[in-house]
């Protein structure tokens, strides 16, 4: 893990998540904007995991390897799967749930930093 990158991922996830929740509160559902936001979150998660893989290949090791791998996989899968499932409900609550799914990445990133050591 690179601290600066992790903080950037946290910020991206927070901005997108809170932004989507804001759209939900305003009862708006701009699908293109939502797609851009969610793809950005997924890209951030992917970059972070790829960087961690490179670090491991170079010989670095997380303090808690099993837990870290679990979080890394979850960070790739949970936000997009959660957001897509949430958006299949057409109400503003579905939009808001997609925002929460994006926020999950920031929580997971905090935990990944902790277990990396």
């Amino acid at each position, binding site marked *: 893990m690179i601290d600066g990158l992790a903080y950037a991922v946290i910020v991206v996830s927070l901005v997108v998540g809170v932004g989507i929740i804001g759209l939900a509160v305003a009862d708006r559902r701009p699908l293109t904007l939502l797609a851009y936001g969610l793809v950005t979150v997924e890209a951030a998660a992917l970059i972070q995991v790829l960087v961690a893989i490179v670090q491991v290949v170079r010989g670095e090791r997380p303090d808690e390897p099993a*837990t870290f791998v679990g979080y890394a996989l979850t960070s790739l899968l949970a936000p997009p799967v*959660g957001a897509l499932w949430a958006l299949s409900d057409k*109400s*503003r*609550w*579905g939009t*808001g749930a997609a925002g929460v799914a994006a926020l999950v990445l920031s929580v997971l990133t905090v935990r990944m930093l902790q277990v990396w050591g």
Partner: protein
Amino acid sequence: MEGGTSPGRRSGPARTSSGPGRLLVLVYGIFALSATARAAVQIATKFDEAPLAYVLSALAAVVYVCATVGLARSGPGARRLATVAVTVELIGVLVVGTISLAQPDDFPDATVWSGYGEGYGFVPLVLPVLGLLWLRHTRERA
């Protein structure tokens, strides 16, 4: 409120997974996932350190999974599963929360429900209350 019964649909209890339920199920899903992962790691790597806490972690994980499945699916069976799971969850967080504060020695390592879920922003305490209210609300909107 959105998510009501659409005109062509058979009357009956409203789906617990639409409207606000979508958000509720998502949060339950997150807790199911994290509680399951946490319990699995605890039991696999250091069960001897705090057996009681880890067994309770596993119980909490099962309860969250059942609540998620029960709320996400529709039908009387799913509703019953959700009601039982959410009720057990509420009792669990109250009992474990109280014991963890009264007898901290029994809990050398934390569970989701320790200190009424303070490690998770008290969401574990609020969630079952919202879950029961939501189950009642969707039942009455038949």
